[in-house]
């Protein structure tokens, strides 16, 4: 797993989500990227059940259980600012058994699906973020395989992003600031996706 940057692409003026995605993919193909199939990242929200809060009177914590098609045998469970657990795919079944402690907020299920492109050592994924039946936004993920230290190659990633995103300028993800010289891992990518999904959930619905 190399250093990854996940950002949201704003929908172009006067165009729908699908048209903007098509524009992006066409630019990528002109650049010379090779289409390599599809990808899917989804996220489910769990509330801490009321019965466990009891006398403490704390607000319920939200837990996100995510899957990434890049790691088909794994399941990621993370809290907002807390630790991230990387577990086996059977973790979903375990969550069903933990119904007493964590309750699934089914309406908040959000996912992004799209195509996966390979360009030299870069892996680019452009996906449409959907919540239920409606498309809410566009997610762009770029991974640079050879490097595992975030601070070393952020400039390179930014340059590459600008070459096909055009005027949109993504800022450095927060996870990069947390670990300066630490090895980048898939948990950081899922944290970025979680932030993206939360931001999109708060946005108003995009008119299709």
């Amino acid at each position, binding site marked *: *797993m*190399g250093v990854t940057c996940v950002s949201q692409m704003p929908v172009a003026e006067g165009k729908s989500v699908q048209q903007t995605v098509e524009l992006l993919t066409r630019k990528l193909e002109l650049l010379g990227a090779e289409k390599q199939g599809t990808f899917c990242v989804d996220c489910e929200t769990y509330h801490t059940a009321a019965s466990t809060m009891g006398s403490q009177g704390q607000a319920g914590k939200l837990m996100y259980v995510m899957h990434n098609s890049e790691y088909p045998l794994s399941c990621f469970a993370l809290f907002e600012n807390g630790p991230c657990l990387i577990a086996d795919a059977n973790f979903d079944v375990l969550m069903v058994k933990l119904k007493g402690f964590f309750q699934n907020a089914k309406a908040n299920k959000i996912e992004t699906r799209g195509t996966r492109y390979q360009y*030299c*050592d*870069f892996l680019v994924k452009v996906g449409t973020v959907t919540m239920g039946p409606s498309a809410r936004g566009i997610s762009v993920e770029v991974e*640079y*395989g*050879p*490097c*595992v*230290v975030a601070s*070393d*190659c952020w*400039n*390179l990633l930014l*340059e*590459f992003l600008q070459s096909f995103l055009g005027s949109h300028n993504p800022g450095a993800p927060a996870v990069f600031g947390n670990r300066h*010289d630490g*090895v980048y891992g898939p948990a950081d990518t899922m944290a970025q996706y979680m932030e993206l999904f939360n931001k999109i959930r708060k946005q108003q619905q995009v008119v299709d």
Partner: protein
Amino acid sequence: MADVLSVGVNLEAFAQAIGAIQALRSSVSRVFDCLKDGMQNKETLEGREKAFIAHFQDHLHSVNRDLNELERLSNLVGKPSENHPLHNSGLLSLDPVQDKTPLYSQLLQAYKWSNKLQYHAGLASGLLNQQSLKRSANQMGVSAKRRPKAQPTTLVLPPQYVDDVISRIDRMFPEMSIHLSRPNGTSAMLLVTLGKVLKVIVVMRSLFIDRTIVKGYNENVYTEDGKLDIWSKSNYQVFQKVTDHATTALLHYQLPQMPDVVVRSFMVSGLSKKFLPLIPPD
């Protein structure tokens, strides 16, 4: 006996028929020659025309005669004897492949191609000889008799010495760590880890560096058996290019008499690869 007789008749008529074919061919070519030469010079136009027509008629008659002779002889030759069936070899005469193969043009292309190849090979050998890549201490052209009988000593070093040299280099640079192992006999295999950027596998032959492979920090350098994988290339194009540079470096640094200096310079050149992630891909 009957066999020989029947064969004998056929053979005579055969030979005569072949002669008749040659006669027919020559008379036909005479007809065409006559047409090609056209009318010969005579005083009057009529004279010329008459002479031409007379000649032409003569030639056509001779063609007719030869053709009749050939027909008569071919009837004499008859069918091949039933006792000697030819089976498939009799079909050889029907083989049309030779007519359809553009033999001459293909031969010509092959000739031109081999000429070009020879020319390019000459140029390439001239260029390559300028950069001598021999890493042994023996000079070229020294005959076997004059070569010293003693083996070059730099190739037969005690493994302990090699270990010492490597551990000394290991201590020289803080961000570079070298791990030595000998899974296949006496030749050392080094796994050099450079910061968190890359790993280099160096295969050595006593103190001479034989091969290098550069891989990313997160790539697997061991095979399924747990042994060091010295053959598979990196998955990333960046590191494949760096492997090419490293191989060039190891061929460039040559000092047959002082191999430890060579190893040290090679490691120093490897340090610059730490700044790799800043180089954009081509």
